[in-house]
């Protein structure tokens, strides 16, 4: 059975995010870290968040149920940090 450590998941997530934003001209001062916010820091639009979710599901070859992360009380969350996504993935993978 493959075990995914928190560090490995974060490394994978950062790589996927970097790949996604490579043409956007965005270069965060400290790189992408756990505190990086997708919308505020990287200017993600809703479709980019979905793109990220699909890319993660394809990478791990499984459905992850991101609606539980992206929805709160019937509305989209306004932003997400890399750390929040990592914690969610650690729980789901």
């Amino acid at each position, binding site marked *: 059975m493959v075990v995914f450590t928190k560090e490995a998941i974060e490394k994978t997530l950062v790589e996927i995010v970097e790949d996604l934003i490579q043409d956007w001209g965005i270069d965060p001062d400290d790189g992408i870290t756990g505190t990086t916010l997708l*919308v505020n820091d990287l200017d993600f639009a809703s479709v980019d968040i979905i793109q990220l979710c699909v890319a993660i599901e394809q990478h791990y070859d499984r459905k992850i149920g991101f609606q539980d992360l992206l929805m709160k009380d019937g509305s989209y969350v306004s932003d997400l940090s890399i750390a929040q996504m990592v914690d969610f993935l650690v729980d789901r993978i």
Partner: protein
Amino acid sequence: MPFVQTNGIRTNYVQIDCESGNDCEDLVMVHGLATNLAFWYIHYASAFSKRYRVTLYDLRGHGRSSITDSGYTPKNMAVDLQQLLDHLSIERAHFVAHSFGGVVALNLACLNPDHFASLVLADTHISIVRRVQKTKNWEFGKRIQPILEQHSLDVDVREPYFGYRLLSAVAHLQIQNVEISQELEDLVSPLMGNNSKRTANQWLKLMGTTQAEKELMGDDGLSLDRLRKLNFPILAMYGEYSQAMSTGEQLLEVWPHADFRQIRGAGHFFPITRSSELMENCRQFWNGL
């Protein structure tokens, strides 16, 4: 998510496999203006994939699909969709479409009705009804107008394409970091979503630097005679407070075979604000086919 070249543009789409095996029917979901496939993804894609293979895509000029100088007439955007279906070898599907997405879907239906196993139309407003609506009173609009005036927005709720103009006005506020009231945010947030300036910028670029505004606000090609010929199963749902309700009333006369539902107390964006109701109505409709 994959891209495909259709009708001279790069179209972004995603397919969610059906959980019930490989023999499932197809479901295609078409979003409205100033949003993207994410509009459907979170609330619906996973739930509906229990029964169908679900295909979502970004309309021309939206999401991660190409922005072109022209080509935004509903008829041409129906060709975009037609070619996407051809690429995916989808000959027949159920469709769910919101707002302008419904105009695109109806144009495709007029072009090729055999594609349609059924259609769920959510709050779609057609141009022939918009043009005559100005003489009518839109009661809920009277409640919205003071909210716009509080923000010094020069938008008249009596305009036929009021919604498009509101989106542009709010997008300007968004990129200028102007704080807007919850009331105003509630009117548009299901579209702009996630406070993204990129979505706001994309909408302003589309409306300001391309032929989109002119083409989107022109004749959508949907005459009542053309619509009357559509005889596949249709569920048409309209928000009680929506400006589009007048189209719903017109279509009620055009399609005696269709199922009409009013979402009480809801506005234009009930697919987001009242998703469980739309979902349940879809399920009941599909179960009855």
